[in-house]
């Protein structure tokens, strides 16, 4: 075989080796859809704001008729329906965020829509990344026919919520974020608890999820101004929920004084160690509204031997004062 022959043979082998569609689960993408095929690259089709989109009004290309993604997405949301309909002749539908991710997901169309014989149904269950880029993002979809021709892209704004509660401020600046959020996140499935000692001396934790103190009648008012609320008890009793974050949220200004923050490894859940990060988030004025900013970040690690079943306050992380 000549040198050219060997070269052709090698190229042919290489081409065969690279053929086929990727089988990635898409875990590094901002979302994924069960049973859908991931394709790298930009979404095909005509952008809705381009002149060509108006020229396509005659409808010679397949069209996405109904388009129903989740419009407000909590971090790590799982099995959320994404569905819609498309005109007859549509073979598949592609969806992606306009500004996030490296490609798009392809779903084949299935039966005729129950309510419109002239439309084909499509859909799947989407799961979203736990650490997305919070804020408003354009979600695009496009219908593709059997010849590979893509129609005009349809778009809808989708709000990706941050892991740290912000009352939707990332998507809508008119929504005021909490005055203060103390948030503890960690990286392995252990029962780690956030504990905060308030100026009143109360220990706020999973068993005492509010900073409110009892009045003379022995009653608590968790809705009172300046009261903080612990939102979740993640992985309680080693019932792994995947959240691995606990946040103490003060919607209004917290009482003045010194706050002590601890991380307590209640149970190691058969894990050798856990790494955690504590963050403080404050609401500050910005123009004519408020914005949430991170004011402190502190990381650390605990080993299984530190698990105490709640017998101690835990590892001291930081203290701060409210004036």
């Amino acid at each position, binding site marked *: 075989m000549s040198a050219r022959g060997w070269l052709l043979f090698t190229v042919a*082998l290489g081409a*065969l*080796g*690279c*053929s*086929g*569609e*990727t*089988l*990635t*689960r898409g*875990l*590094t993408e901002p979302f994924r859809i069960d049973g*859908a*095929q991931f*394709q790298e690259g930009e979404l*095909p089709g005509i952008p809705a704001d381009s002149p060509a989109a108006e020229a396509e009004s005659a409808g010679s290309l397949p069209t996405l008729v109904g388009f129903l993604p*989740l419009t*407000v997405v*909590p971090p790590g*949301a799982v099995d*959320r329906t994404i569905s819609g309909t498309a005109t*007859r*002749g*549509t*073979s*598949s*539908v*592609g969806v992606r965020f306009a500004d996030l991710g490296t490609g798009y997901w*392809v*779903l*084949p*169309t*299935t*039966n*005729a829509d129950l309510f419109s014989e002239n439309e*084909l149904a499509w859909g799947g269950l989407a799961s979203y990344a736990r650490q997305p880029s919070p804020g408003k993002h354009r979600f695009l979809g496009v219908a*593709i*026919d*059997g010849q*590979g021709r893509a129609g005009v892209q349809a778009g809808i704004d989708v709000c990706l919520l941050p892991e740290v509660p912000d009352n939707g401020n990332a998507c809508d600046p008119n929504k005021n974020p909490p005055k203060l959020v103390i948030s503890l996140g960690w990286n392995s499935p252990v029962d780690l608890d956030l504990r905060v000692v308030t100026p009143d001396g109360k220990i706020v934790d999973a068993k005492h999820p509010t900073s409110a103190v009892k009045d003379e009648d022995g009653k608590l008012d968790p809705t009172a101004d300046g009261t903080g609320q612990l939102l979740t008890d993640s992985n309680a009793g080693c019932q792994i929920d995947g959240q691995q974050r606990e946040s103490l949220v003060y919607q209004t200004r917290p009482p003045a004084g010194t706050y002590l923050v601890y991380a307590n490894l209640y149970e190691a859940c058969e894990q050798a160690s856990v790494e955690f990060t504590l963050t403080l988030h404050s609401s500050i004025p910005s123009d004519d509204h408020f914005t949430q900013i991170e004011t402190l970040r502190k990381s650390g690690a605990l080993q299984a031997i530190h698990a105490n079943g709640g017998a101690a306050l835990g590892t001291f992380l930081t203290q701060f004062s409210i004036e």
Partner: protein
Amino acid sequence: MHFAELSLLPLAVVLLVSPSALAQPAPAAAPDDDMEVPATTAPAAPTPSATVPAPAPPAALAASPEAKTAVAAAPTAAPAAAPAGAATRPKASEVDVAKAEPSSLGGLRISGYLHAQYQHSAASEDQLNPSGAPLNENEFVLRRARLRFDRTWDYAAANLELDANTVRGMTVGIRRAEAAIFYRGPNAPHLPPLLGLAVGITDLPFGFELPESTRDRIFMERTLGSSALFPSEADAGAKLFGAYSVLRYAVAISNGEPLDRNGLPHDPNSAKDVTGRFGAEGEPARGFTLAGGTSFVTGTGFHRGQPARKSVIRWRDDNEDGVLQANEIIATPGTAATPSKNFDRWVLGLDLETSLTTWLGRSILYGEAFVASSYDRGYVPADPAASGVAVREAGGYVAFAQELTKYALVGLRASIYDPNSDVFEVHADKTVPKTQTVRTFSALAAAVLPGRARLSFQYDWIKDYLARDSLGVPSDARNNRWTLRLGVDL
């Protein structure tokens, strides 16, 4: 059974093309060592000290599968330097890893081998699957580390083979454990006995690939079709085997449950599977061998029932706001247990194998084909009790291997497997057939240190329909793979 007539077809073919084979004994060659241990010479006297086998020199030809089975079950049946029949298949000792001389200890024979490899898959991903298992497939693996003990007597034999590997984490288990009795009859020492019975964990006699020695196998692993029907080569049961002239037979009755960690802990039903192979092998002309046979399995599969479930309360986030509302609490009442069910299943296979020895070395051409009903137990496990319809499966392969002197080997193999011929899906409001067929093309090159080791490289082009193209049509997934393996005898 409707395939009874078919089962005699390959046998007839062999007899027609090799009439001389009936008249002459098979040529002398080294015995097969399916799993591994070469056959021993017959003891001079029925005393333990006399049963110490002679070391087996490297073989020139490999034995056919049923002969391997026979020899493995009754090591005294064949001399160390003779094949268990006129076989056409290359054996490790000839074309790849040669057998090391086994150690003997008071009549107890000890041998083994080791396969260590690096494997790479285009489908590999540095992520975890939903159950937490790694999706990375690019790794070093101890594929097999086998250690085998054999003890043979005049009319009885026993063996125990252990396997250690890291395919699914560190695992050690029994690969084979057989107790056998046999009657040699008029058969020459290099042939399997006239009649033998092995009980224990024994290889199933089906086609060429299944009972083939993993040490002798030319290609890295069995084809997908074989692995789908038989996730593990061995099963617990009893096997009747033997040879008469050029004819070979083996029939096994076994539990019918794969002996791997994916199966049930023990046989879930009282029905047993019957597996058998009837064939012939001969050498019609000097240097030219021919073998073939037909195999079958008939048995009973098991559909798992569900245990009773207690009532549970679930939260369904109807408005997807992540906050519990009263109307989102769903009470799911408990359910009664559902019964398990049995279902019929069967396989029918044909195999043919030929080899020709030239100045360059041995050329081997072989293949198998099968049709099956509801017998897939490994790739897409069939459960007709759930669907109400029997699952039709079909597959086969053709392989060619060429020795390039005794120091190198190349091979090509094309295989196909359809795990279900009756799958449909709705696409664009049309019900269309959906193929699940997988075609694999394998190319292998190996450097051989005769009698000691083999360094092999194999590339597998896998053409399937596991992915979808941009039109939503099933298309080939990017999952080609290659393997670099070093095999050395212990």
